[in-house]
Structure formats: C-alpha cells, structure tokens
C-alpha cells in the first residue's frame, strides 16, 4: 500500500516536473550524459568532451550521471530520476541493451530525446545510436597505422585474438579489402594469440623467427598488442619492428616509451562525449531528426549518417603516439 502510494507520488512528481520543465527549456537545455558507472576514467573523459560541446553550443547544461556500479538496475533508477527531473535529452552508454528499453521508452513518451552512444540500446529504446567507429574505418586504420611508418613498403603480420573472434575477423577482412590502397605492404601471416598474454607473446616470437625481415605486427586486440610489444622489446627489436593496432593508452604507455610501438589507435572518449552531446542537442532542438539515411551534425567532428537501424559511426579511431600518450594514459 505504501509502495503504491509512493509510486503514485513519484508519477505525480514526474508529471509536475514535466510541466515545470517546459518554461525551463527557454533558458537552459539540460542534457544528461548517463554512463555505465561513475568513476571510470574513460567516461570522465567523455564528460569532459560533453562540457566542451556545451560551452560551444551555449545555453546547455550537462548532467553527468550514472550508477556506482555497472548494472542495468542502477541505470534504470538513474533514468527514472532524470525523467522526474524533466531533462531535455538523455545520452546513454548502456549496461544492457534490452533491460533499459522500458525505462527509456517511458522517457521518450515524455518527450525526452534519447540516444545511446558507445554501448548501444536496442532500436526500440532510443532514437539513434552513435558507434565510436565502424568496422570499415577500423580495418582501414590498422593497416594505415603500419603503412604510415613504412613509406618504402614492407612485411607486416597480424596477431589476432582467437581464430573464431567475430569482431577481429571482420576487422581483418575489412583490412584486406583496402590493401590495394597500400602498395608495397605485404601481409605475410595471421596468427592467433587467443587473447592470452603468454600465447600472444609466443606467437609474436614465432613471427619474428619465421619472418626475419618483418617490419610491423598489427594486433587489433588489447591483450595481443601489449604482449607483442613486450616480445619485441625483449627480443631487442624495439624500433626495428613496429607493433601497432588497437590498444588502450594506459596499457600501451610502456610500449610507446620503449619504442616497440610507434603509434596505435582506439576511440577518443573526449570526442565521443562531445559528439553525443552535439547529436542530443540537434535532435532535442529539432535541428535534425533521427531517421534512416539522415545526417546529423556533430560540430567539429563533422556529420554522422544513420543506417537502417538508426545507428551511425562517429569517426576513424583516434591515433595515440609519443606526442599525446602522457595526456591520455591516466584517462583510460
């Protein structure tokens, strides 16, 4: 009984605040950036990007929030309280694609713009989803990273996770599609480190033995890239063989320092938070509508084009090297 009354009360306040929210719209647009959990460097950086977008747009207030642990229940509570507060837009990185749908639907019913970014929500629970990058862009980026340091061409090898890892195989496939754009670069082998540090290390050692003229190892996996960099460093070939691919700045800082890796890529959380905010603003003001084929402006990040599921890719993965690693290694 008490519970029912409480729910009613909550619904009442939600409605009341929805009414109250309308005049507030005139001065400040409130965009909530909901993350998987508070206290994670990656998301703190995204919040920084969101603030940057807010400053650029003007008249926008960012509510950076999320549960204290990465659970869907925690996020549902956060969403309900945001609905009660009557925010104008919610941009969420979801802990569960399906569990959040009812809560987010409720938000959309109340006229709140809902988008997901980084980690998506099922299509019925959001207006659009912003992927950090796309398979094509990643596939192109990993070979470009190697090729940029090999102007005269050379031999590269791929160190993947398991032979059956879907994302890895798609990226490698996309990489092979664009090989024609990088003349002189030859992929001599693809080996599998199973995302185990010791096996990846051993496979990297095997590559160095089998291909004495190897110039670069491309590892589109965060375990593999670290292990390969260590193997190259231990073999005394830092500077000679460039280890590159996808990795996290905090994990790769040592490899950049030793010279085993000249550069690597991953999404930039600051850009991601910035772009999500820009999109949320554009949709909430009606500047753009989320529909298949639509282009939505993202400020300095250009435009995102939506596909048939209303999702789009932000940009190329961001390149990290000696010039910016120190700034990012403490972030994520």
């Amino acid at each position, binding site marked *: 009984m008490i519970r029912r009354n409480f729910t009613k009360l909550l619904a009442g306040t939600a409605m009341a605040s929805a009414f109250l929210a309308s005049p507030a719209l005139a001065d400040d647009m409130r965009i909530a950036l909901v993350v998987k959990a508070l206290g994670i460097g990656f998301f703190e950086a995204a919040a920084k990007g969101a603030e940057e977008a807010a400053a650029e747009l003007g008249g926008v207030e960012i509510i950076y929030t999320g549960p204290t642990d990465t659970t869907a229940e925690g996020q549902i509570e956060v969403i309900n309280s945001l609905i009660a507060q009557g925010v104008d837009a919610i941009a969420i990185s979801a802990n569960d694609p399906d569990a959040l749908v009812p809560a987010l639907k409720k938000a959309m019913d109340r006229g709140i713009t809902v988008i997901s970014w980084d980690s998506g929500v099922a299509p019925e629970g959001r207006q659009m989803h912003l992927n950090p990058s796309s398979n094509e862009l990643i596939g192109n980026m990993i070979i470009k990273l190697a090729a940029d340091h090999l102007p005269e061409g050379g031999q590269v090898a791929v160190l993947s996770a*398991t*032979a059956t890892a879907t994302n890895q195989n798609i990226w490698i496939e996309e990489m092979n599609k664009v090989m024609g754009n990088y003349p002189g670069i030859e992929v001599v*082998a693809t*080996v*599998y480190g199973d995302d*185990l*540090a*010791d*096996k990846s*290390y*051993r*496979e990297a*050692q*095997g*590559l160095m*033995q*089998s291909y004495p003229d190897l110039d670069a190892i491309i590892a589109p996996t965060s375990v593999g890239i*670290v*292990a390969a960099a*260590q193997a190259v460093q*231990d073999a005394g070939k830092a500077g000679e063989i460039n280890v590159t691919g996808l990795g996290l700045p*905090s*994990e*790769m*800082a*040592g*490899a950049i*320092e030793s010279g085993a890796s000249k550069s690597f890529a991953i999404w930039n959380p600051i850009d991601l938070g910035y772009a999500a905010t820009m999109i949320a603003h554009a949709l909430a003001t009606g500047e753009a509508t989320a529909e298949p084929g639509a282009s939505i402006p993202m400020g300095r990040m250009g435009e995102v084009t939506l596909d048939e599921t209303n999702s789009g890719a932000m940009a190329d993965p961001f390149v990290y090297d000696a010039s910016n690693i120190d700034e990012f*290694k403490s972030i994520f």
Partner: protein
Amino acid sequence: MLKRLLASREILLLGAIMALLALIATRFPGFVAPSNLAGVFNDTAPLILLAIGQMIVILTRCIDLSVAANLALTGMVVAMINVAAPGMPIGVILIVAILLGTLLGMVNGLLVWKLDIPPIVVTLGTMTIFRGIIFLISDGKWVNSHEMSAAFKALPRTELLGLPVLSWIAIAAVLIFALVMRRTTLGRAFYAVGGSPHSATYTGINVGRTQFWAFTISGALAGLTGYLWVSRYAVAYVDIAGGFELDVVAACVIGGVSIAGGIGSVAGALLGALFLGVIKNALPVVDISPFWQLAISGSAIIIAVAVNARANREKGRIILKSAEHAA
C-alpha cells in the same frame, strides 16, 4: 637391463621429445639452434615450476586446479605492491610472493585435510574465489608495464652464465625437489600416501597432513611463478594464465604421473612440461592452422595417457608362473 631402461617412462619421453625436435627441424631448421632451445626452456620454466607442485599433489591422490588462479592472484598482489612502493627490494617481493602463494595453498590443504572435501571440489572453488579476489582488489583494472619499476621487470630477464634467471629458478626447483622427493621423509610420505593410503596410515603417516603439505608446496611454487609471470609479461590483470591449470595437469599426465596417485617423478614432470613447451613454441613457427594446433595438443595428451595405461597394465604379476612351467 636395456629393456628396463627402454620401459622407463622418462627415457621414452625424452626419446619422444628428440623425435619431435627432429620433426620440427625438417620444417624449420632454426628451431633446434641452441639459443632457440634455451629460449624454449625459458618459456617453459613457469610450466615446469607449476608441474613439479602439481605432481606432488597428484601423487597424494589429489588435484590442484587453483594453481593458475593462485599464480594470477599472487602476481596481481606483488604488481600492486610494486606500484604502491616502487622502491621495495625485489628480494622482499619474492618473499611476499612465495609466502602469499603458500598461504593460498594452505587454504586448499586445510579444506581437504580438516573438512575432508574432495580436492577437485575444493580447488575448483578456490580457483574461482582467487580470480574473484583479483577482481575485487584490482577493480578489474590492469597493472601495466610503465607502472612497474625497472627492477621489478628485470629479474627474470637478467642473464647469468648465458641463461635468464627464470630458467635458473626452474633448474634449481627441479634439483631441490628431486632431492626432496628421494631423500626426505616427507618426500617418501607423498609416495606412500598415494600408493596406498591405508598402509601409509598403519606406518604412522598422517594422510591428511601429507596432502596438506602437498598443497602447500604447490601453492608456494604457484606464488613464486606468479611474480615471475607478471614480471616476464609485464602485465597483470584478472585473466592472466587463464586455463593454465589444465596445461599443468597435462604436463604431469604426459610426464607419467598417475592420476590414481603414487606414481610419478620430478624428472617426469620436467619432461612432460618440456614436451608441451616444445609443441607450444614450435606450432607458431611451423605454420599450422590454429584449429589443428588445438587438436595436436589434445592428441599428445591422450596418446600419453594411453601409453601410461598400457605401461601400468604390464605391471600385473603372474604369481603362479613357476607352477605354470612345471605343468
């Protein structure tokens, strides 16, 4: 004499390793170069250390599935200590690693000894608990190479008389435990307990306590390996050495350690580990599909067990042989 020598598991296994090396050399001659073989030995050193501990546990009719998780937890703890206090001497770190590993091994041992829970259940449980603890203390984060001090990473790599310290530690462990298993009361008790627990009890050996010591030794070796592993790969996270316990058990089985207890030797564990080590290091250079790699590793284990079973069968004695001849 020759027949007895040939029947010895160790000699047979040594022959198998030689044959394997010869086979690999036909496809990749560089593999059998002395420097590369030293590299293979060094790479196999962690497996050797853990296999010795596992062999002792299996001798007493138990099994320790928590070794890899113990290694990972100890590795994470010493890595975090190193980050918090980079100036701490490596000697202290080594002692902490061994002590912590010992402690974790003792937990297994106590549960098996005092509560009489089957070892496979105990260690399956502690395996998960240890991994869980790593997650709790690290918050799921990695300890990365740039956060570790240079001295922390240097020890296993330091070369002494042409071999890295990691290899020397494995060699020392092999020698020490060969001696312990042959010459000490405890070493003999391990065999007695596994060979025939009832007889062991009658001779005054406490079966439970002997098993406790077996788990303790296995834990200590896992702890030591924990530091060496994290230092060698210069990274610590929840999943390091995931599934490695199966490699360790496989090395023991290939090395002729009987899962039924009572049979096994340090030399067997060493050779079993080396056999797996050679396969693991050779597969990347001989250019075989990753799917075949798994099948080959698996086949090696089954063949070893099959050979083992046959060897054990032949041990049956015909007690009425003389009567048979007389007839």
